[in-house]
């Protein structure tokens, strides 16, 4: 088991290095250098820059350095927690990201828990009652859940909530709680502001997972060991929940790794519609205005989260399925 974890960790480290490299490559992709963006901005403000100043800026941004040198500068600074300076606000990238990332992760984790708690029982029910009316209804609802784009659902719920005066748009906290220390009341207040986002995020993921759960369970129910379990005289409920679900749940565990970052990302559109200040809208803005240091850093951080998620998924899988441990 320890061996397995170490192997996974080494693998992950290597991947992170390569990912950061590719991530930086993408940062450099957009046409026009960082300098052009900066110059345009200064000119827009009405400023005029001399040739010497331009040359100084070139050195500062390392425009003339080869790719590897620029990468090295970026990555060493990033490792020291200095992710460069956003062109847009001249504010430290690191600071801006951490503020929002926390909320994104929190929101997504919450949605994830919700998803799991809902989709497993529904998937089991759907599989064990295949081709019955409830199964058809569940299937139909799932498809609707999958087919409705999250941001539209967000919009509709937002309209309903606004009409009912049930939500304050555009922030995470009411004014009186913004600077207050964490307390239960503050948490409730946060919930009041983000519940639509949680619902929207959970609906799509739940629909998908329920579907997977149903399909897996149907596969597993055809396995010989299910018949063995029945032949022992076990109650059908025990057969399903002890013997079948434990085996059917593995892909769900594996999906856990990718689901967390997927939720963080899925929240991009939803948060844009709901004007919730999380990492998603920030990433989008950065891309739109070609603030590539910010965008690239977020991309690498998200990849990092994905890898961590995968690692957690793998470890959980090893815990659930004894076969994995000995591979």
């Amino acid at each position, binding site marked *: 088991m320890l061996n397995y974890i170490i192997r996974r960790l080494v693998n992950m480290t290597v991947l992170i290095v390569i990912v950061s490299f590719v991530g930086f490559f993408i940062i450099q992709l957009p046409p026009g250098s960082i300098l052009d963006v900066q110059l345009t901005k200064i000119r827009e403000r009405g400023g005029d820059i001399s040739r010497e100043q331009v040359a100084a800026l070139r050195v500062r941004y390392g425009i003339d350095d080869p790719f590897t040198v620029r990468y090295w500068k970026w990555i060493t600074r990033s490792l020291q927690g200095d992710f460069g300076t956003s062109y847009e606000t001249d504010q430290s990238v690191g600071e801006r990201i951490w503020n929002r990332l926390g909320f994104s992760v929190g929101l997504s984790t919450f949605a994830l828990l919700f998803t799991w708690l809902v989709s497993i029982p529904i998937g089991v029910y759907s599989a064990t009652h295949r081709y019955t009316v409830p199964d058809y209804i569940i299937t139909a609802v799932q498809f609707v859940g999958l087919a409705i784009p999250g941001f539209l659902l967000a919009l509709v719920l937002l309209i309903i909530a606004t009409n009912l005066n049930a939500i304050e748009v555009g922030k995470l906290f009411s004014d009186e709680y913004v600077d207050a220390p964490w307390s239960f009341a503050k948490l409730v207040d946060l919930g009041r502001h983000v519940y639509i986002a949680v619902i929207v995020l959970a609906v799509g993921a739940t629909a998908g997972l329920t579907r997977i759960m149903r399909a897996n369970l149907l596969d597993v129910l055809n396995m010989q060991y299910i*018949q063995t379990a029945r032949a022992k005289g076990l109650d059908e409920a025990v057969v399903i929940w002890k013997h079948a679900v434990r085996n059917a749940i593995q892909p769900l565990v594996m999906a856990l790794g990718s689901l967390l970052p997927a939720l963080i990302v899925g929240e991009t559109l939803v948060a844009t519609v709901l004007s919730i200040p999380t990492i998603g809208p920030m990433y989008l803005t950065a891309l739109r205005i070609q603030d590539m240091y910010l965008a690239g850093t977020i991309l690498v951080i998200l990849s990092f989260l994905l890898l961590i998620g995968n690692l957690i998924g793998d470890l959980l899988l090893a815990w659930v*399925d004894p*076969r994995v441990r000995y591979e």
Partner: protein
Amino acid sequence: MTNSHTATSQDDVVRVEDLKVSFYTDLGVVRALNGVSFNIPRGKVLGVVGESGCGKSITGLSIMQLVHSAGRNEGGRILFREFADGESINILDYERNSAEMRGIRGNNISMIFQEPMSSLNPCYTVGNQIEEAILLHQTQDAVEASKRAIDILTKVGMPNPARIASSYPHELSGGMRQRAMIAMALSCTPTLLIADEPTTALDVTTEANILELMRKMQEDIGTSIMFITHNMGVVAQICDEVAVMYLGRIVERASVDDIFYEPKHPYTIALLQSIPRLGRSKGRLASIEGSVPDPYSRVSGCPFHPRCPVAISGVCDSVVPEETVVDAAKGHTVRCHLYT
């Protein structure tokens, strides 16, 4: 009628009478069992032999009431008598998932399957899976259950029972897994063990070991066995009596000696001729003409007549032969127009 086959008044563990099971699929109705009747004498090993798709496994599963839910029971009785002096109960009177039925499964009647690789749950240790049955039917005490599990593992000849109990199925070989399955099936000392091709997936050496083990366990515990197989060689090794099945019917029923030395039904004869024998390798090995008919269609008359070398035209293709007693003393019966 059809249940007159055993003239000897012996004690049967299970008596199946005119069992009919059909499957309703998208492509049509499959009549898997067309009135199967046979008995399993107490303390004996009954071999049920036939080609793939003849209904052997469905018969076994029917006794456990574990036929896939698409299969419908369309008549017949399955009488089970736990003790020689006890009352018979009709298993089909119980609901599939009723407490009574579950009380029988694994406790009075247990079953082992063909694929040792997939018949154990990969997520639980072998010990855990054996204890599960013991805890269900025998004792509530977990410590006692685990002790009994190791006991039974010792009995089935596991070299290191305590270690095996804490192993996962994927850590064991096919033969070991089948031993574990047998241990699980026998953990509650059942009256009847249904073994559905338990050695088909194993190599010959392992097969011999497992058969020997089953024979030994059968003698030790006194369990009756219904041994489903397509292999006549295996039948010769383990069975006391044999029922030959063809297309959802028992076509011949006799003692193992009679089946091999006095076969009556043309199908049984053909089956025996298709076994390769050492020292007699002159010419091609005989095979049965044609193949098993499409399961969705029905054959009129004797189901074997399209492939039968001695079919009587005008009779075999229109009238279903009834069960005929060939030798009442030995309980030898056959369903063939040649003997009516």
